[in-house]
Structures are given as structure tokens and as C-alpha cells.
């Protein structure tokens, strides 16, 4: 079980005053304080860890958010920023003496500028909501985490989220132009701007992926792109995980950058097919979803070369999507993959590590061995093109022993990622989940340097503490 810091007795003692203070700023409708109503906020998408917060605050404007932070800072109260609560690393896990600030009510799109290709949106707009607002005009926002239907852009910034199409377009950090942030002192700051490369230090780079520990994001200016003329996905089915892994390495090694290159193993294929009815090959041990885009001629040329490379690995089948509906079903299955595993297992831990693509066959074999060792099934679903693994370890939360084995299994996988030259996190963030493994990646000196940055923004460590850094020194 994850350790959380001792609640501050002083904070707990003045709970009523804190809630009254929040209600002065947000009225009754913006504050949740009753035990029964706090319960559903006790966890995010990582269900293994739970802790109801002291209260939940739901601001509707940047000014309200600033007032709430100013007040909580004065009172020395810890703050947990929360978007849609879809984090798989426990990024929004509350603390008993902490106030969760939910950004769901700040869900307006403020400006779309096609000439200069940017959009300004509030932090609580969903990732897909941005694209939905401009799709009919032929534009889109590129990073597409699998939870894009629900996850919010503020959280994407906090975790520097990726997604299937980041192989070509880069992750959140590569698609941001500016942020409106609120510091723990309640100061509202604009960083970046409406174009690439703002003047001065790259504050945007520093804040992106800082997991809500440096400031809270209230508005985001994103780069938007014109959609390609068209896209097509190919399904390539293979006889083993290792063979499919080797094929990925071959494609990437050849210099082709498909717009997406996704991997699913047998358990994942079956669960997703059940949900999406995409016609995934059920006889395959491993499946690659390879998408290319551009004009029809470009698509044909790329698919032809990729097909030839797949053929070197004795595929069971290769099928190119024939219609927009077919492509939609293929992606519906892939994007719903984590949830779809809920069909075959009551609970899962979704891991998130990154490895050099050349190590894929080895890592997949080792994960298979670990699965036997821990007697737990695993479904492998991941962004193979950029070596971002998402093994889903299946367990039963009603069985404590199975959960402990799952935790150990997960830690082993992440350590393996570091061992082969990769890293602990791809796009889900460290959160609480990987906090205690940070020593595997960084030396104490490196961690101290990072802690110093946090202290510079947040001297009292009120913003999303107990995450990212091992607890001992926090």
C-alpha cells in the first residue's frame, strides 16, 4: 500500500473554517464537504489507492481559482489539482488534509484562430473537445491520449500526455504555445504566447509535465494543425509478441514515421474486439495497427513499403482499412483498450514505461516470464512506435494477495525499462504510482535539484505534494 504523509493536525483542526472560507469564495454550489459526497473523489483512474480529501472546490473562473489558492496558501492547506480524474498514476490522489481543486467547470473554448493556428481553451476542456470544436473546419489538436474523450487539457499539460498519433506530431509539450497559470500565492501569470518560441527561458517547457507541483493551469493556448487529406490504418497480425516487436523495430529503423504504430497482444485483441467489433484478427498473438496519412498516393506508397517490411516477418494477415467507418472502429477499440480489459478482469494496473524500440522483443519476452512468475495475466497495449509500453497487469482487488503481486510485477517491469536504457514514465506521469521508483532513474543529487525547482515555486510544498518524489525526503 502506498504511504501518504501524516495529515497536518493544524489543518484538520480548522476544517470548518477552511470550508467556510472556500464557501465565501465559491458559494455553496462550488464546495463539497460532506463525507458521503467526498467519497467519489477519493481516487482517480488509479483505483489501487484511495483517500477522501478534506474538501473539494470547483472554481468557474481564473479569478476564483486564484482566490481559492491565495486563501489555501494563507491557511497552509495542501492542494490537489484535478481535471477529469482519469490519471493512471494517481496524479489526482487526494490527501486527508488536502483540498481537491476540480477544474471541470472551466470548460469553455475561448478563442480559435485559424490564420495563426492556435486555440485558447480553459483547463477543463476535454482533449477531444478541442478537436471537436474545429473539426468541421478541417483543423485538429494533435496529441491524442487514449482517454482523450474524457481527459482534460489542464491534466494533459500537467502530465505531458502523449497518445497514439504523437509518433508523428510529438507529445503535449510539442503542441503548446502558452499557458495562463495561477501560482500557489494566487498570482495569475501568462507564459508563452500565441506563437512558437516565446522570449526568455522556456518556462513552458518547465511547467509542462510538472504534475501540478509548480502551479495550477487555468488556460491553455494550443497549437492547432490542418488535418491531412486522408488517413488509412493497416492491421498486421503476427505469430508472437517478439516477432511483432521485431517488425516495429524494422519499420522505425527504416526511417518511416507512420502517424501511429500501435501494438496489442492476444488478451488485448480479444477484449477490444468484444467492445469495438473492429474485425481484429482473433487468431493473432500480436497485432500492429499502423496508420499513415496524406494524399492517396502518399498513403499507397507508404503502405506498400510497410507491407513489404511486415512480409519479412511471416505475418498471419495484413489488412488495410477500406472505409472511414472501419478506421473509426479500429481506433475505437484501441482507444477503449484499457477500459475494455475491464471485460476480462475486475481490476488492472496500467504501467507506463518507455524503452528504446530495439529492446522491444527482449522486454516483451521478459514481461511474459514475469507474468508466469507472478501468476498474473498481462495484456500488452502500447505505442510501439515510440517505445512507450502500457502493460496492463490484471488482478482482483477483492483479493489482497493478488494486488500485492500486481504491485511487485509492475515495479519489476518499470525497473526493466530503466535497465534496458529507457525510463519510468512515458506519458502518465510519476504520480504516486512510480514515486518510490524514482531512485532507480535518478541519483539523490539529481532529485535534490528537481526538488529545489519545486521549492522555488512552492516553498511550503502545498501543491500536489506526496507525488513524484520519494516520500522520505519530501
Amino acid at each position, binding site marked *: 500500500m502506498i504511504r501518504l504523509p501524516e495529515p497536518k493536525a493544524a489543518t484538520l483542526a480548522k476544517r470548518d473554517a477552511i470550508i467556510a472560507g472556500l464557501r465565501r469564495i465559491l458559494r455553496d454550489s462550488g464546495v463539497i464537504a460532506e463525507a458521503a459526497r467526498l467519497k467519489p473523489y477519493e481516487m482517480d*483512474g488509479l*483505483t489501487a489507492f484511495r483517500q477522501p480529501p478534506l474538501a473539494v472546490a470547483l472554481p468557474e473562473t481564473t479569478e476564483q481559482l486564484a482566490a481559492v489558492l491565495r486563501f489555501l496558501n494563507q491557511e497552509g492547506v495542501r492542494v490537489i489539482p484535478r481535471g477529469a480524474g*482519469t490519471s493512471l498514476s494517481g496524479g489526482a490522489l487526494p490527501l486527508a488534509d488536502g483540498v481537491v481543486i476540480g477544474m471541470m467547470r472551466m470548460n469553455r473554448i475561448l478563442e480559435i484562430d485559424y490564420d495563426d493556428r492556435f486555440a485558447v481553451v480553459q483547463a477543463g476542456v476535454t482533449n*477531444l473537445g478541442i478537436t471537436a470544436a474545429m473539426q468541421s473546419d478541417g483543423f485538429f489538436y494533435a496529441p491524442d491520449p487514449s*482517454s482523450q474523450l474524457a481527459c482534460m487539457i489542464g491534466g494533459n499539460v500537467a502530465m505531458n500526455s502523449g497518445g497514439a498519433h504523437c509518433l508523428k506530431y510529438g507529445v503535449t509539450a510539442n503542441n503548446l504555445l502558452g499557458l495562463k497559470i495561477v501560482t500557489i500565492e494566487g498570482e495569475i501569470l501568462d507564459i508563452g504566447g500565441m506563437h512558437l518560441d516565446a522570449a526568455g527561458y522556456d518556462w513552458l517547457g518547465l511547467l509542462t509535465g510538472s504534475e501540478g507541483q509548480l502551479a495550477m493551469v487555468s488556460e491553455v493556448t494550443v497549437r492547432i494543425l490542418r488535418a491531412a487529406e486522408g488517413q488509412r490504418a493497416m492491421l498486421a497480425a503476427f505469430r508472437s509478441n517478439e516477432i511483432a516487436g521485431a517488425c516495429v523495430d524494422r519499420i522505425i529503423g527504416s526511417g518511416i514515421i507512420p502517424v501511429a504504430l500501435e501494438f496489442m497482444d492476444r488478451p488485448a485483441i480479444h477484449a477490444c474486439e468484444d*467492445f469495438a467489433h473492429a474485425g481484429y484478427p482473433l487468431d493473432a498473438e500480436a497485432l500492429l495497427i499502423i496508420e499513415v496519412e496524406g494524399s492517396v498516393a502518399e498513403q499507397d506508397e507508404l503502405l506498400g513499403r510497410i507491407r513489404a517490411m511486415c512480409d519479412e516477418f511471416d505475418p498471419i494477415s495484413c489488412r488495410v482499412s477500406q472505409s472511414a467507418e472501419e478506421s473509426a472502429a479500429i481506433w475505437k477499440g484501441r482507444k477503449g483498450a484499457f477500459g475494455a480489459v*475491464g471485460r476480462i478482469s475486475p481490476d488492472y494496473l496500467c504501467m507506463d514505461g518507455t524503452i528504446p524500440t530495439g529492446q522491444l522483443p527482449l522486454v516483451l519476452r521478459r514481461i511474459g516470464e514475469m507474468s508466469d512468475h507472478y501468476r498474473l495475466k498481462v495484456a500488452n497495449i502500447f505505442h510501439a512506435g515510440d517505445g512507450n509500453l502500457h502493460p496492463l497487469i490484471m488482478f482482483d482487488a477483492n483479493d489482497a494477495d493478488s494486488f500485492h503481486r500486481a504491485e511487485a510485477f509492475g515495479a519489476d517491469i518499470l525497473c526493466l525499462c530503466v535497465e534496458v536504457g529507457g525510463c519510468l514514465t512515458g506519458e502518465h506521469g510519476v504520480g504516486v504510482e512510480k514515486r518510490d521508483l524514482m531512485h532507480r532513474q535518478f541519483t539523490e543529487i539529481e532529485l535534490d535539484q528537481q526538488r529545489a525547482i519545486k521549492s522555488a515555486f512552492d516553498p511550503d510544498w502545498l501543491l500536489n505534494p506526496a507525488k513524484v518524489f520519494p516520500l522520505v525526503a519530501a
Partner: protein
Amino acid sequence: MQTNFSVEQLRDSDNAASNSVLRTCVHCGFCTATCPTFVLLGDELDSPRGRIYLIKEMLESGKPATEEVVRHVDRCLSCLSCMTTCPSGVNYMHLVDHARRYIEETYKRPWPERLMRGALGRVLPHPRLFRLALRGAALARPAAGLIPTGTMTGKRLQAMLSLAPAKLPPQSAAQKPQIHRAEGARRGRVALLTGCAQTVLAPSINEATIRLLTRLGIEVVIPAAIGCCGALTHHMGQHDPAMAAARAAITGWTREIEGEGLDAILINTSGCGTTVKDYGFMFRDAPPAEAAQAKRVAALAADISEYLVRIGYQPQRPAPDLTVAYHSACSLQHGQKITSAPKDLLKTAGFSVVEPRDPHLCCGSAGTYNIMQPEIAGQLRSRKLATLKDRRPDLIAAGNIGCITQLSGDGMPVLHTVELLDWMAGGPRPDAIGQSDV
């Protein structure tokens, strides 16, 4: 998701069913995005995932429901948009149905609410009482402005009066229990659920259905002693009246199935269809013979649009130059997963068909929701009407009387899909469409 039911608790069939629903949920949060109340209210507690958690805690505790939980479960429309979105296949419908029943049995609502819910449950399913009540409402309408709207009760009374039509259509003999013979050679034989509120509010829907089917060579039986299917009271958690109504319907249809036989049990009010198709689950603990009958009825139940696709529909009139904005009732698209059939039929009939933005969002009707939660329902109505009108249609079509009532009164004709199909297949022009429109 982890659950904490005792072995004793799991012996209860409802708890056992809810436990397995909860165990399927992995708390991914996808459902929040497509939930109408979450989109409007921006609170986890008003999202499916939040409600699932509140319900889990309530059921596990075994204690009476509390105001905090009731507030958020009451705000759920049961539109089931979450079930379309859920990758894990969580049966939210069964869970929330259980929660509503649990609340009804363990929670004492304030008396004005109790009174109102009791009255709705007693009046709406009975056409005679409902007609009487609507006449009363029409008389009371001029006084609506005098009702103080500072309280929820005041708002609800206002909502009730504003939903009541000023003038009721005349009663229709076609809806009474009888057999409508097929024209020409008989190709099939079906039972039609005429519905309860629908028979009073818009008899033209059943008339159009019967005309269209008989013209297509289908014999249409309206069995005696089938009133409400039970959906209305079922959604209010009123278990016993719901089961009694459902039982009467099952008995009536079974008599026909075992008599001259039925190819289908047709439903043209999709809210009812979702419930009738769930009879197998509702009667899972009934004596084996009754459970088997319920299952058989559920398997034969079909929406009118499903059935028309099955038997084939062709228009007889030249295509009208009309654009129809199709509003997909939640009970059709989410409850029964019928999405393309009504649109395909309308296109076959010769209409241009357009759809609003966010077609997955509810219009706010949701059974008695527009009376019990007038504010949220009003916001959803405005939003839906705006997105429908954005597409510049000549009229709106929907497959559910609830939605039709909710969206009417805004200057745009709102018709049942089947009325348009009947018209194009040789039936009379629906009254709602003026001569000048064609």
C-alpha cells in the same frame, strides 16, 4: 473495481447483480465526458462514475439512503449515454434501477415530493386519469404565473403545467383492444404496445403505426388488459406497481403468443421498449414459468423502426422537399442501440435527414425527469433545440413520445418517425405539417 459486500448481503439477488456490475467498472472515467449532467454541472458526483461510487457506498453500507446520495441519483436522466461510451461494458441501467428502488424503499422524501411522485406514478400510466389531469392542468394554466417558483415544488408544478398541452387531441378508437386485419395477403402478425401517456397525448402515432403496418400486410393485435409496460414507475423506483404492470403485459402478450402467435411485439415509444426488452432481467427471480414468459416477451420486443427495416419499407409518394432533423431518443440510441434504422427509413422515404451536434446528449425529457428536475431538463431542452435548429430543418422527428412532448412548443413541428413514414407510404399528411410546407 473493488467492492465490499458481505457474504450475507450477496445472498440478496439485487445486491449480487449490482456487485457484478460494479466489479466490471474500472473507474476509467470515459463515461463522464458523454454524460449530460456532468457536461452541465461539472461535478464528479453528477457523472456516471460518481454515481456508481455513491451507489456502491450506499448499497455496501446497507443503511437507508441519505439526502446526499438521493440528490445525485435523482439528477441522473437514465439516458444511458454512459453505457454507449463504457469500454468495460458496465450495465449502469441495472445498477441505477436497483439504486432507485433502494432509495424508494429506504428514504423518506419531503412530503410535497412524496405527494408529487406518488401522483405521477398513479396518474400517468392510466390514460383515463391522465386525460382528466391534463384537462385540469389546461384549466389551471392561466394561474401558472401565480405559483411561487422560489421552491423546487413550485418549479415542478410550473413545469408540469407548461408541459400539459392546451388542447388534447380527440380520443381514437383505433387504439382500443382489437385486431386490425392486414390489407391483402397477411405477411405477419404483431402485437402493438399502444402505451399509456402516448394514447392520450398523440393518438396519431398509434394510428399511423397501425395504418402503415396493415398496409404492409401485417396484422396488428392490441390485446386487452395491457396498459403501461411498467417503465414509468420502474424508473421512479416504484418496484411493486412496475412489476404488476409488467406482469399484466406479459400475461396479455403470452396469451397471443400461445394463441395465434406473434412475429414481434412492437413498441413505438422507445422509452417503453428499453424496459420491455429488459423483462428477462426484471423477472429473473420469478417462478420458472413466469421467468420464461418474460424472456420470450423480451426477445420478441422490437422497436417499430427495427421491424420496418426487417420487413422492408418502400414509399408510395414522390419524395417531399423536406429536411428532417432526426433527434435520436436516448432509449433508442443508448438503451436499445438502434441508431441507423430510423434515419435509413426516413431517407428511404425521401426526406433529407440531418443530425444535431452532440446527438448523444439527452433532450431532458427522460420520463418524469422534466417535471422532477425542471432546471436541468430546461437547459438540456434549449441546448437540444438550438443544435437541431442549427441544421435548418423543416421539422424534427423522434421515436419517443417523451422527447416529442419535450421538444414541442418551440415553433418547429415535432413528429414521430412513423408518422412521416406512414405519410410517404400513402397515409394522410400529419396535421403538424402545414400545407404550405410542401
